[in-house]
């Protein structure tokens, strides 16, 4: 919140990639000593698959957080999108495009609703998106007991399982989406306005930025990304899953990935490159621990420590930069 934090940043390589390289190096060594191999085909593929799902959500989350907002409803949007896609496809390829269109449209509508609550009704984003998440949770809990619908075989074969070498198609999708968002942030008026709104809404408004419009757009894009993640998960699972989003902790994990990537939770500082690094870091830790067959619960403890430590490091650096 301090004024020191708001400094224009250049597109330097975020520190998270240093952490990622170190983690992979140490992880590779430890797994090797343990008698395993970290970078074999199957581990790499599953690492990139994990990164693709979380990454799509986190890239969208980056946009709203940069704008000084937040989206806690993404987990339920993910679940809803898997169901809409899988139920519309209903196991055939014929309805592939309408199904994807429907899932994305509904997701965008949820984002629009979030954005309007935050901007027009001036409800705090935490409460607004928590409330919308609860609305969706009730709908999902009421309508579904388990998996429903069936994903079209073509989608399963392509987005779900196809890969080029060790790189899954879904990860390339993440790279493409992240690239588009990066361009939007670095090169378009929307991107500059979004960072300005997140940095200081009052100054942005006085400079002629239409804060509300920018924030609503960010929320719509965030939900679209979550919807896309849902379509990807439907292609992996072969059906719609009403609890895949909340059980995967996509809401909190995506926020964690964003801040590990160096984006300030208060908004106005950061970028999508760091977020992809944060997602890869979380996925790598997962992969290393899986190789070492570490207890799943211990993994969670370590994950909590890493999230706090990473942000503490950023806070220190921001403080030093501010003082210099």
């Amino acid at each position, binding site marked *: 919140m301090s004024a020191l934090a708001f400094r224009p940043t250049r597109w330097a390589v975020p520190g998270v990639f240093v952490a990622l390289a170190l983690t992979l190096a140490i992880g590779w060594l430890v797994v090797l000593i343990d008698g395993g191999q970290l970078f074999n085909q199957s581990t790499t593929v599953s690492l990139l698959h994990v990164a693709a799902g979380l990454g799509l959500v986190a890239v969208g989350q980056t946009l709203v957080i940069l704008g000084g907002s937040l989206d806690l409803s993404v987990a339920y949007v993910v679940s809803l999108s898997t169901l809409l896609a899988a139920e519309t496809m209903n196991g055939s390829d014929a309805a592939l495009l309408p199904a994807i269109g429907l899932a994305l449209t509904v997701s965008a509508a949820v984002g629009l609703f979030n954005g309007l609550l935050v901007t027009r009704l001036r409800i705090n984003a935490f*409460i607004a998106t*928590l409330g919308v998440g609860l609305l969706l*949770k009730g*709908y999902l*809990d009421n309508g579904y007991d388990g998996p429903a619908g069936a994903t079209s075989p073509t989608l399963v074969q392509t987005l779900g399982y196809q890969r080029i070498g060790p790189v899954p198609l879904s990860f390339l999708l993440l790279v493409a989406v992240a690239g588009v968002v990066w361009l939007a942030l670095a090169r378009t008026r929307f991107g500059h306005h979004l960072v300005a709104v997140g940095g200081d809404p009052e100054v942005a408004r006085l400079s002629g930025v239409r804060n509300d419009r920018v924030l609503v757009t960010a929320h719509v894009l965030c939900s679209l990304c979550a919807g896309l993640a849902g379509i990807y998960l439907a292609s992996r699972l072969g059906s719609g899953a009403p609890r895949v989003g909340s059980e995967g902790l996509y809401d909190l994990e995506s926020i964690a990935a964003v801040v590990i990537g160096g984006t300030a939770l208060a908004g106005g500082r950061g970028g999508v490159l760091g977020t992809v690094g944060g997602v890869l870091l979380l996925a790598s830790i997962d992969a290393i621990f899986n190789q070492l067959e570490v207890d799943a*619960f211990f993994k969670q403890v370590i*994950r909590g420590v890493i999230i706090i430590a990473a942000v*503490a490091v950023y806070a220190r650096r921001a403080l030093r930069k501010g003082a210099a």
Partner: protein
Amino acid sequence: MQTVQRSPLLPRLLRVRPGGLAPIIALLAVLLILVAVRQSDFFAPPSLMSFLGRSAPIILLAAGQYFVIVSGEFDLSVGALVTAQVVVAARLIDSEPARTWPVVVLLLGFGALVGLVNGVITTRLRVPSFITTLGMLLILLGAVYLWSDGAPKGGLSDEFRRFGRWAFEDVPVLGRVPYALIVLLAFAALAVLVARSDFGRTLIAVGDNPRTAELSGVRVWRHRSIAFVLSGVAAAVAAILIGGYSGVSFQAGAGLEFGAITAVVLGGVALGGGRGSVVGAMLGALTLELLFALMNFYGVSGALRSTVQGAIILLAVAVSAPRSSSR
């Protein structure tokens, strides 16, 4: 950050004092009337007493959360802390009545310690409290699952469980008064005293503008850390009541953090700090519990509950929220 804005006349007349109690009392009254229409015997002493007893934990959590939120921070770790406390208590007591009191003291100390760690990391290392307490949530849940190999072990003694489940019988007029209600009243009175003390008032100043508070000689980090400690202790007391009432499970505290934050916001406390009252926060929790009771009476299916809850929260906050709370 703060700018004075002149508002049009009409909204200015309609607007209630930000942070005031009027909206939450109005909402509570509406819910009470709806309950009275549907289920008038709800207000008979026995059912009213047991309702208040059941609501005690969330009201305590809301009071603890109030101190953190009014100082400008968040505590997302209280739900996980409650779960951890209940599971730890069961394992340590292992159905031995003699261990009850030491474990109660230990739990209170553990709650305070977790709060202190949250507070110090947030204030000294400058990690946003959202992240600190989210990390703490993961750590606590992971650690407690790890420690008990995935299934709760041991058991709570009857001595321990009586706080959450026993009651004073044959009280004149009221009939059965749950211990939990007495605990609630005692801690609620304490919370009001703390909120009205110098510390409580300074805390509001800290939340309103930490920089000004700092320049006025307030040790902001110390005040905020103490607020986190209060929230941790509140979670410990809530855990003792919940463990007694509903027993040991990994789900004991699930979702309580969002419940407490919702209650606090319903009670007119501004997220971001600086405005609100602890009484409002506790009334907010009571309102939330009454809403759940009401949904029961009207036969709303369990699954649809969260939809109704979400809608009510959005409506209530949209109508009563101070107009400057958007970040």
